[in-house]
């Protein structure tokens, strides 16, 4: 029986000829990632181990991005714990404030993740790197500790769902709408334990940033990973960002999929996830009732890349943020920030009345830089709209694309740029 792309990568990293869904394997890791929230727990666990030191100081990435620049004393203690660990163990890829960005935008940009890799990260959105054709998945702090010490992790080989992508996106529709549409269709546990394998001739019409957004939210359908084939777009990206050699794996023609879902990009409309689950989706045309929005966030590991800022800036051009609404824009990395400055996007945001923050995950998880008060409503390009995720338990989050978020910041209700 043939293997899926994910299964081939896992087999190669477990030194096995082939693997089948459900098989338990131990795989060699190319990268182990942690942040300022999950790493301190992992470091505590590592101290309990009889092994000393890390398996490979070049294959660990530590990024203080969640509550950094630190929001309070306890967060500062956590960052300090990670920083000291990084220095003691001479971790090559420790990114201090000033160099850091949101981890899942930063790692591909720094060339640390390439096609064919097996990557674990103590952050659920580690699945982002599937956009480049890597197997990457979120784990907890103990797995991170074991990974840092041994360079290995155990996995149950996943079965797969095939998404056959055709067509081309319409103006103002982007990767976020594709993944919200998919989650709306299959539900927040629709791909539980499985890999989401994106294929089809429509892939070539998706930008690299669209693919990062789509792979990033595979976890929001419960998936173990999301993965894209390695085409010219991905190869160009890796050549521009990485000196590491990559390996291209392709699914066998007779690979087995539990389900096949056809996605025609040309039929998709801007899609918004209503509280309190990413599966509660409506297209912009299905929204009949309008209500006042208090805050808009444009950023995060899902939508803080240059494409996202370009789209938002285009919408803001010649417009102002609605009086009484706060709009917070967060470029995901320092490089994206610089590029956005060069392109004039930052000027556009500030002139429109938005604020621009240094890279941080901050508001996405109700940490800092935009926490919501009682009963406030926020349109956000982030990835989760769970109860209390961005602040007070009675606040509400509407997940949307950068185009919808920017247009909503201008009108003060959920809107599309088409309506401006």
């Amino acid at each position, binding site marked *: 029986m043939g293997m899926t792309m994910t299964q081939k990568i896992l087999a190669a990293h477990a030194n096995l000829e082939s693997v089948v869904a459900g098989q*338990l394997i131990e795989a060699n890791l190319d990268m182990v990632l942690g942040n300022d*929230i*999950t790493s*301190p*727990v992992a470091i*505590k*666990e590592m101290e*309990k*181990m*009889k*092994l000393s030191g890390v398996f490979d100081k070049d294959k660990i990435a530590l990024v203080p991005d*969640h*509550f950094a620049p630190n*929001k*309070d004393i*306890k*967060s500062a203690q*956590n960052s300090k714990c990670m920083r000291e660990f990084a220095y003691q163990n001479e971790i090559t890829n420790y990114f201090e404030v000033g160099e850091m960005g949101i981890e899942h935008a930063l790692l591909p940009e720094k060339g640390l993740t390439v096609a064919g890799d097996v990557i674990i*990260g*103590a*952050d*659920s959105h*580690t699945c982002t790197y599937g956009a480049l054709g890597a197997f990457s998945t*979120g*784990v*907890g*702090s*103990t*797995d991170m*500790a*074991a990974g840092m*010490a*041994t360079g290995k992790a*155990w996995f149950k080989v996943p079965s797969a769902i095939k998404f056959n992508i055709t067509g081309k996106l319409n103006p103002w529709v982007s990767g976020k709408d594709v993944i919200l549409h998919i989650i709306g269709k299959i539900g*927040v*546990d629709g791909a*539980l*334990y499985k890999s989401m394998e994106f294929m089809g001739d429509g892939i070539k019409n998706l930008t690299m940033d669209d693919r990062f957004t789509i792979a990033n939210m595979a*976890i929001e359908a*419960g998936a*173990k990973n999301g993965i894209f084939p390695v085409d010219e777009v991905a190869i160009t990206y890796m050549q521009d960002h990485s000196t590491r050699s990559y390996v291209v794996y392709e699914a066998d023609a007779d690979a087995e999929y539990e389900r096949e879902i056809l996605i025609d990009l040309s039929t998709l409309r801007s899609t918004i996830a209503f509280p309190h*689950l990413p599966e509660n989706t409506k297209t912009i045309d299905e929204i009949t009732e309008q209500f006042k929005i208090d805050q808009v966030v444009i950023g995060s590991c899902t939508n803080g890349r240059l494409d996202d800022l370009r789209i938002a800036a285009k919408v803001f051009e010649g417009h102002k943020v609605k009086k009484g609404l706060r709009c917070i824009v967060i470029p995901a990395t320092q490089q994206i920030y610089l590029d956005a400055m060069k392109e004039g996007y930052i000027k556009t945001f500030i002139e429109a009345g938005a604020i621009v923050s240094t890279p941080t995950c901050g508001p996405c*998880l*109700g*940490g800092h830089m935009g926490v919501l008060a009682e009963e406030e409503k926020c349109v956000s390009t982030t990835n*989760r709209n*769970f*109860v*209390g*995720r961005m602040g007070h*338990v009675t606040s509400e989050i509407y997940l949307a694309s950068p185009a919808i978020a920017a247009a909503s910041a201008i009108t003060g209700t959920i809107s599309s740029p088409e309506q401006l």
Partner: protein
Amino acid sequence: MKANGHVFKYGDNVDTDVIIPARYLNTTDYMELASHCMEDIDKDFVKNVKKGDLIVATKNFGCGSSREHAPIAIKAAGVSCVIAETFARIFYRNSINIGLPIVECKEAANRIEAGDEVEVDFQTGVIVNITKNETYQGQPFPEFMQKIIKAEGLIPYINQKNS
């Protein structure tokens, strides 16, 4: 190895943001995390939970963030076992890795009600509802995971392998 206690019952898609809200993730102190466990969906949980009690939920328990603080908070609050129809995969791994027993069982997840007294045998996966006088067959752990649980977590398991 068995768990025995009274049940706190929840529904589908209990996410890790409500198990332990991110506003408390600036600490790694287990007892402090436990003192806020389930706070955003059940304010009375921490007040009422007793050592040995169980959490029973339906689909996709523990979805969302990879924060290990979630199973840590549940375990430190005194919960002896979580039963659900299905678990989100990162939560499942994390629970095993820190030695919080979890069992998948659709029938138990749907039949058991809040306050029921329940006993779980981790080796066999057999769940006994003492209050209702019913028995359900949960999924026992694969051998590989049983070894990790027997060692009381992944780190002691690796230590054993290396000693």
